């Protein structure tokens, strides 16, 4: 961090920590209902929090197969520990942190097995682009899809820290800083300044392409 620059706290007051449709109080209540056997509450948790789990997994650049497995492991473990989680209203952070740890473990075991290959590099090449293709099918959407595609391209070209942070922030609904902190293992106070820097870099890249 630059000496003498006090990290901005300007964003901490934004409704960031609410996280859209499923806020902390809701999550706590849904967890409690699910513990009591309410399958609809469980489903609401899955619907509401899946994008967060998926984003954490994607941010760690696993292969598609590994990403699918880690996502499942996280939810299986959540179901198993339901009712034993000490702070149900922090279930989002629990999920984010569990996903992160599982990702790091999978990456570590891959590194042990394939010493010479860079699995992350290989994965990028084999990445499945079908959703994009189906989106492009619509001709009306062509211009917009062009924009979406180079936005995504520039995002993917960002450095590792920025790409990782932004991939988590892109979960829908927008995760709070507590969850981001749990997902990346970085201090809450460093997220705002890093986010700003990364978004500025992305915008500079888009500008350089004449695309703002």
């Amino acid at each position, binding site marked *: 961090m630059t000496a003498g620059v006090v990290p901005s706290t300007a964003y901490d007051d934004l409704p960031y920590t609410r996280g859209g449709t499923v806020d902390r109080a809701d999550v706590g209540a849904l967890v409690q209902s699910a513990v009591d056997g309410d399958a609809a509450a*469980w489903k609401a948790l899955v619907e509401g929090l899946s994008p967060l789990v998926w984003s954490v997994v*994607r941010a760690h650049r696993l292969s598609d197969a590994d990403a699918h*497995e880690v996502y*499942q492991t996280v939810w299986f473990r959540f*179901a198993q520990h339901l009712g034993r989680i000490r702070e149900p209203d922090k279930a989002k952070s629990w999920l984010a942190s569990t996903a992160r740890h599982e990702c790091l473990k999978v990456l570590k075991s891959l590194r042990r097995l394939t010493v010479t290959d860079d699995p992350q590099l290989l994965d990028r090449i084999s990445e499945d*682009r079908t*959703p994009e293709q189906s989106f492009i099918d619509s001709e009306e959407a062509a211009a917009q899809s062009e924009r979406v595609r180079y936005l*995504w391209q520039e995002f993917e070209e960002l450095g590792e820290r920025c790409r990782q942070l932004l991939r988590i922030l892109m979960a829908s609904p927008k995760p709070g800083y507590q969850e981001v902190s749990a997902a990346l293992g970085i201090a809450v106070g460093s997220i705002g300044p890093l986010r700003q*820097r*990364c978004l500025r870099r992305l915008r500079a890249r888009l500008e350089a392409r004449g695309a703002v």
Partner: protein
Amino acid sequence: MSDMNDDQNDQDADFDEEASPDEEFALELLEEELRQATAILDPVPPALRQIAVEAFALHDLDSRIAELAFDSVVDALPVRGATEAPRMLTFHAGEVTVDVELTPQGLMGQVLPPQSARIEVLSGPQAGAPLTTDDMGRFIHEASPAGPFALRLRTGEGVIVTDWLTV
């Protein structure tokens, strides 16, 4: 990897100045646009979401959880050249310990203190492959688990399920 990329360049003061409200608004818009792009290009696969919905069946307050206490992937030093070294796992639930060794050929393990138990190898909410231990609590399964993995043990003292992990 891309660690040499621009975001490591922390002395880049231009990117650290506080944003004006206008700029912050523009960055918010960009972030929102990225969120929409993600929803199009990299959404949660619906089949996965469905599996998570069905995972509610794993919610079971009557069984005890055997917590992962040792995992060679994390806790052991890598052995140079030993790329096919088995993965060793140890789970604890109270007085009961479950040791598991995973190899490409399958899994073997032991329940301690030695006791007979019926064991299921789980890969999801559905029932798993059944195994029985010998009198010493030892068990063998001749298929290598892949993906999410847990063991459910029925012992004299009740049901124990190990922590889920990815293999």
